[in-house]
């Protein structure tokens, strides 16, 4: 018999495992706690295996790009070589060896830092482009808040402290902005619970392939 993840048996496993972990979180029964700990340990091991599968997927996608000579093949070739070199060095010398640390400190970190710098420019450009798409009340409110929250602390540290401006800044960031952020997070939390429950009752089955 060819077993597929969409077989109802797998949905039952997902539901039972999910329910056990959830109940173990709320109910303090020794057996339930023990089961929850075992399942979470299995999940940790699986996560590590899945990470390896993920790296393999990354490698295969770029090998395919090289084979089919897609656009910008050079970058894929560069990625494959860099990935293999890093993998071999980390495997042979260990993840904490000076060679591995050198790769992280002198290649990965500077590359990622340059992307963050690029991001700062992109965000300023995005703010300008937002108005190019159209001027709405929400756009104006958004831009005014961004400028106020970012500009006022700089202004206060630059020039002499202005008590009124300082209090206004604190009032906006600690009352209005915080209340808004909490409201959004409350909505997000409800959405997270709903999504989790849909998976738990088998209404959503992202594992049915």
């Amino acid at each position, binding site marked *: 018999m060819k077993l597929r*993840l*969409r077989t109802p048996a797998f949905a039952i496993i997902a539901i039972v495992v999910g329910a056990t972990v*959830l*109940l173990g*979180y*709320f*109910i303090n029964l020794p057996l339930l706690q023990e089961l929850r700990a075992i399942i979470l340990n299995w*999940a940790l091991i699986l*996560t590590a295996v*899945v*990470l*390896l*599968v*993920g*790296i393999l*997927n*990354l490698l*295969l*996608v770029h090998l*395919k790009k090289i084979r089919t000579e*897609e*656009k*910008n093949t050079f970058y894929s070739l560069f990625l494959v070589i860099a990935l293999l070199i890093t993998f071999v060095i980390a495997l042979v010398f260990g993840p904490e060896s000076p060679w591995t640390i050198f790769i992280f400190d002198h290649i990965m970190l500077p590359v*990622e830092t340059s*992307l*963050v710098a*690029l*991001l700062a420019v*992109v*965000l300023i*450009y*995005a*703010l300008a*482009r*937002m108005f190019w*798409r159209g001027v709405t009340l929400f756009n104006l409110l*958004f831009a005014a808040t*961004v400028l106020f929250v970012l500009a006022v602390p700089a202004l206060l540290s630059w020039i002499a402290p202005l008590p009124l401006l300082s209090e206004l800044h604190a009032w906006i960031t600690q009352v209005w902005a915080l209340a808004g*952020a909490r*409201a*959004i997070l*409350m*909505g*997000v939390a*409800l*959405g*997270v*619970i*709903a*999504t*989790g*429950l*849909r998976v738990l*009752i088998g*209404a*959503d089955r*992202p*594992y*049915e*392939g």
Partner: protein
Amino acid sequence: MGLIFVIGFLGLMLLFGIGKLSQSRRRLREIPAFLRLKRAIGLAVESGQRLHISLGHGGIDGPRGAAGLVGLSVIQKVSRAASISDKPPIATSGEAALGILSQDVIHAAYRLINAENHYDPSLGQITGLTPLSYTAGALPAIFDQQVSVNMLLGSFGSEVGLLADAAERTGSLTIGGSDNLPAQAVLFASTQEPLVGEELFASGAYLQVNPMHTSSLIAQDILRWALIGFIIIGAALKLVGVL
């Protein structure tokens, strides 16, 4: 208390999902992003252009996993509609489990339309395993694959601005939603159709993935009003000195 809340939530979802109560309450308020998305999906299929769904790097095993699961539901719906296209939808993710599940969901969509032999595993790609490497890896998918609609639906940080900028430069429609507040702010400024707050979690209901998405949205609305009520009552009681 937490367990009672979860059971109550589940009860409401099932009540609206199974019972007739759901029939009368299925009118959802209009969200422009979803109206445009539905039209754009149809146009992309007709014109042979690709749809790109970016799932973020939140994984599936923590609180940030829910956003990725929502993205997977959208892939499920979009893949069923657009797999017959010359350029089927492509999904990129920054976490291994999410990437594997995206392949699984796309595979299932192909099987459903009896086109399993056309399935290509590289339609679900893991483009990097750190937030920035994922973003850098996903950029070629936006630039080189003739994408007409980009859906950035998952857990991102502010680095999502780079993806949104790339999408904007290709002239494609960009819809973005995240569970992360800084990412929401970035998406608000940089995408044509941002999903604010919990709108990301309503995606399944608006795209009609399955009836349970609509019922869970109704349950969410009811509980939100209940929570608002509790907060107001609590504040009033505190004000008069009872609490």
